[in-house]
């Protein structure tokens, strides 16, 4: 079994964060989203991984993952270039996959339960493909699978008006090499892409059985800022957090806190977990870091009250105010305007930024 990890896409819904980097490298609980996928594949016993690169962020992704040795996996890079669809991405991996089965994992997705059960379910039968499904409350908004009593998929329907089930495809698949011939026979859809659901439908029509695996834990597509915040909350809730750094006398901490050994919570600061504070970061006196907050490396916080937020890193946040439900990009600084005249907020805001003042 091999892994194909999709790391392309423009990240347009995450602008301005993705103006300077790929969406798969946005951190959740101070760890790039893409590394959760690598961990999941490795946990499922998959150590040969093809990473699909698009037109954006190729060098950054290669710099992070390298040859995979630091994760105990072997990585081959596959440059898709134009985003011609998930089936095109899978097709580009044909030489890498060879005659093996493979897991296809969307690199901007995080799921609690990993892919081990999906792989084991697929390997227990003789399937052309296996798909991960999750029950959703609004099936009209998703690609939906109809399944028989044995759990085999009988039909895939994109955003149905009258959905036969509430089981949505969540972007995790296992394929046999038969999918490559199905992809060869595909035509681009109305949006000019080769659709993976069309490839699966083609396998069905050719008589292959398609396994389904219903994922019960949480799953997040981290495509939007609010998704990053929710994924951050879910991961902090579930992850073991270790306080290795310095908590000075007079600092107040409560709950589970990840504190890197080079970081400090100073006298007079308050941190309430679950929270994550990465390397070389200082939480100074008068600062409050509330639950579900991740502060990236090389940052200084002073006087600010911040909660349910993600600070990616290299930031100076020293204003006396409250920040909630926010995502701050790398090198973003928030300083006090006290004493400046004329009074007022002073902003240098990039394209596609969103501010609520």
């Amino acid at each position, binding site marked *: 079994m091999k892994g194909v990890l999709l790391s392309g896409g423009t990240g347009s819904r995450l602008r301005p964060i993705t103006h300077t980097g790929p969406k798969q490298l946005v951190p959740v609980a101070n760890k790039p989203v893409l590394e959760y996928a690598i961990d999941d594949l490795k946990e499922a016993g998959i150590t040969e991984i*093809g990473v699909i*690169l698009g037109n954006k962020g*190729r*060098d950054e992704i*290669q*710099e992070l993952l390298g040859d995979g040795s630091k994760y105990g996996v072997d990585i*081959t*890079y*596959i*440059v*898709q*270039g*134009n*985003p*011609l669809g998930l089936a*095109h991405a899978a*097709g*580009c*991996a*044909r*030489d*890498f996959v060879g005659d093996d089965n493979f897991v296809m994992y969307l690199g901007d997705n995080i799921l609690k339960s990993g892919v081990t059960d999906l792989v084991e379910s697929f390997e227990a039968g003789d399937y052309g493909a296996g798909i991960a499904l999750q029950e959703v409350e609004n099936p009209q908004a998703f690609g939906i699978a109809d399944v028989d009593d044995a759990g085999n998929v009988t039909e895939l329907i994109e955003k149905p008006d009258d959905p036969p089930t509430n089981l949505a495809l969540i972007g995790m698949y296992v394929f046999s090499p038969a999918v490559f011939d199905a*992809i*060869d026979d*595909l*035509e*681009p859809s109305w949006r*000019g*892409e*080769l659709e993976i659901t069309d490839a699966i439908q083609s396998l069905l029509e050719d008589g292959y059985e398609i396994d389904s695996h219903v994922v019960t834990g949480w799953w997040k597509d981290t495509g939007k800022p609010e998704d990053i915040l929710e994924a951050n909350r879910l991961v902090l809730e579930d992850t073991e957090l270790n306080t290795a750094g310095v908590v000075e006398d007079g600092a107040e901490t409560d709950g589970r806190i990840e504190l890197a050994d080079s970081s400090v919570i100073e006298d007079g600061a308050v941190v309430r977990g679950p929270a994550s504070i990465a390397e070389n970061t200082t939480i100074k006196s008068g600062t409050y870091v509330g639950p579900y907050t991740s502060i990236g490396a090389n940052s200084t916080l002073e006087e600010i009250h911040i909660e349910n937020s993600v600070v990616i890193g290299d930031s100076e946040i020293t204003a006396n105010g409250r920040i909630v439900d926010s995502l701050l990009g790398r090198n973003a600084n928030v300083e006090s305007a006290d004493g400046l005249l004329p009074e007022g907020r002073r902003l240098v805001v990039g394209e596609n930024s969103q501010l609520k003042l």
Partner: protein
Amino acid sequence: MRIITHSCPACGTIVAANELENNRVMKCPGLGCQEVLRFEELPEDAREHFLENRDRYQI
């Protein structure tokens, strides 16, 4: 739709034909690899198929 790729002989990075054709001659996108990749290195039938169907490989 036939998907055509080319593997860098130096680092193994796989490059889709649409990427090769866009550049014709390109430095391998594998980080740190100095190999030069050319669209002309694809087999003749693959090149012809790609060029005859070029519009379908664009977005």
